[in-house]
């Protein structure tokens, strides 16, 4: 496998694993939680390094970090359940505390260890091809592909198996509890997988890109559809497109790969926000403009219906207080629809227009 393919594949696996879980995070209004978890796993990683004697110990690091992720979730839940502070403040309190513990531990005790903070935050996906997994004396290929492949598969299985239960507990946790679907347990399972995914992707893409991949593709997909299965599928697609396009652009511009992938994802979100047929800003605006024009034309028809002679344009403008440009737009539309006709003496209804003027809009 060439290095390019390995990097792109790693990124696609990270984005797929993230989009599957991120869709539910976004719908549960817990997007901020992914930010918290991806930072708060640091002390877990540090602890795992200490336990394993400072070697690169992926499995131990994964578990330690996942435990730290769960600790974050538990602390946040516990703090907000006391009703003294709101959920967002609880998140804001817990994760900097845990993250700074991790930073302190690194700076005090692990100066000589191969664990630098830049790599933690930004990762280095470009190194993905060089870290290979070796077992039984065999070179099994890039470690990142194994880790992320496993996590993507795990998350896919989780979402497929518990789709119905996840959907119900996300939409109506009260009913989920009443029907015996243990929304609390599902919540912790989801958060455990988010923690595992964040940690697994840590080395290759860093904390920032994980948050970007967990939130931006699902948020983009949310704007594009009103059906949950489609939303999840689109989120995976947006993540994959960001991975491929981000890599290509990063090579062309000689820029940070992870940074470019997040940027492309952000651009895709902006496009969806502007142009989504469901509720994009620009389609909504043009729909409003079209409606204004059509309603104005209907008013015009009703007005003309009260006169049995052509009404001069000047009179219409005075009657409605429209600008000549706006009247021209409405008039143009009505003429194209064959509802009114121009006349040397002003505007008059066509036979079709007269019929329409009598109907309710």
């Amino acid at each position, binding site marked *: 496998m060439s290095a390019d393919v390995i990097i792109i594949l790693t990124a696609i696996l990270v984005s797929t694993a993230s989009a599957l879980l991120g869709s539910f995070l976004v*719908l549960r*209004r817990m997007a901020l939680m992914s930010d918290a978890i991806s930072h708060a796993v640091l002390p877990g990683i540090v602890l795992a390094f200490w336990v394993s004697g400072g070697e690169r110990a992926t499995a131990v690091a994964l578990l330690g970090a996942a435990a730290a992720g769960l600790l974050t979730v538990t602390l946040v839940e516990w703090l907000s359940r006391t009703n003294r502070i709101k959920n967002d403040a609880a998140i804001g309190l817990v994760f900097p505390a845990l993250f700074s513990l991790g930073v302190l531990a690194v700076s005090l005790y692990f100066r000589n260890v191969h664990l630098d903070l830049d790599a933690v935050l930004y990762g280095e996906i470009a190194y993905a091809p060089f870290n290979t997994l070796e077992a039984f004396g065999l070179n099994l290929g890039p470690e990142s592909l194994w880790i992320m492949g496993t996590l993507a598969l795990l998350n896919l299985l989780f979402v497929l*198996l518990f*789709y*119905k*239960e996840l*959907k*119900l507990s*996300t*939409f*109506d946790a*009260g*009913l989920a*509890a*009443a*029907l*015996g*679907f243990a929304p609390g347990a599902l919540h912790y399972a989801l958060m455990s997988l988010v923690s595992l995914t964040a940690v697994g992707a840590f080395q290759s893409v860093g904390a920032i890109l994980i948050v970007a991949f967990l939130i931006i593709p699902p948020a983009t997909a*949310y704007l594009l*559809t*009103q*059906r*949950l299965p*489609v*939303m999840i599928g689109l989120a995976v697609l947006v993540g994959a497109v960001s991975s491929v396009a981000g890599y290509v652009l990063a090579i062309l511009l000689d820029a940070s790969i992870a940074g470019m992938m997040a940027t492309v994802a952000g651009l895709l979100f902006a496009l969806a926000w502007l142009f989504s047929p469901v509720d994009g800003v620009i389609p909504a605006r043009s729909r409003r403009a079209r409606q204004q024009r059509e309603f104005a034309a209907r008013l015009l028809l009703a007005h003309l219906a009260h006169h049995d002679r052509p009404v001069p344009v000047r009179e219409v403008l005075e009657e409605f207080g429209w600008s000549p440009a706006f009247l021209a737009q409405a008039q143009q539309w009505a003429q194209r629809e064959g509802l009114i006709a121009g006349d040397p003496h002003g505007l008059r209804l066509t036979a079709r227009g007269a019929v329409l003027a009598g109907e309710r809009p």
Partner: protein
Amino acid sequence: MIRPTTSDQFSPISLRPAPLEVRDLTVAYREKPVLWDVDLVIPEGQLCAIVGPNGAGKSTLLKAVLGMVPRASGTVQFFGQPLQAVRRHIGYVPQRSSVDWDFPTNALDVVLMGLYGRLGWFRRPGRAEREEAMRALEQVGLAAFAQRQIAQLSGGQQQRVFLARALAQNSDLYFMDEPFAGVDAVTEEAILQVMHELKGRGKTVVVVHHDLETVRDYFDHLTLLNVQVIASGPLEQTFTAENLKATYGERMSLGR
């Protein structure tokens, strides 16, 4: 259907324990109790209203009974059993504002959720379930809106979707939290129809209600609540000027 526990079969008084029996229930969010020493027996197969002024603890009573808020003291039994044993046989129609209506799904799908309990873990709803959900939607007059994204339904239609979901759930005991609040006449009529349909099937319906004008027309059984139970029993015995005054207190005499 829920069978009575064996011990109840020896009970000389009734063959089947009441759908809901609350003893000495007290709930406090802070220092002051929201509910104080509530005793309540809801009879089977009737439409029961829980009425009282704002802040009387009506919604809290529903939530405490269903284990959604912690109880300071007291016991709650459903058909003579604890909540855990009968959860799936209890339908809860929450206030409309309790869910996010921007969730990417349609009306039919929300109604289908009422059938999840019967399906259990892992099994997905199939054609039979979809047909059943459609029938429930038809009953509340929303068959034409089955595929409609739920955010695009009116408030009254959303309330009716919740009702259809409760119908589909086919519980023995229903709790509805202010279903008549802020709905139009069509929806009010639909809710009443559903309530009578449920009663016809022998179900018990407990409704938190705030409109004194309609209590007499809608319900068989009335519980007047203001932190404590003021009166509870058949409507003709409890819906008296004296009880209302005891429930609403000075506010009634001040207002009129």
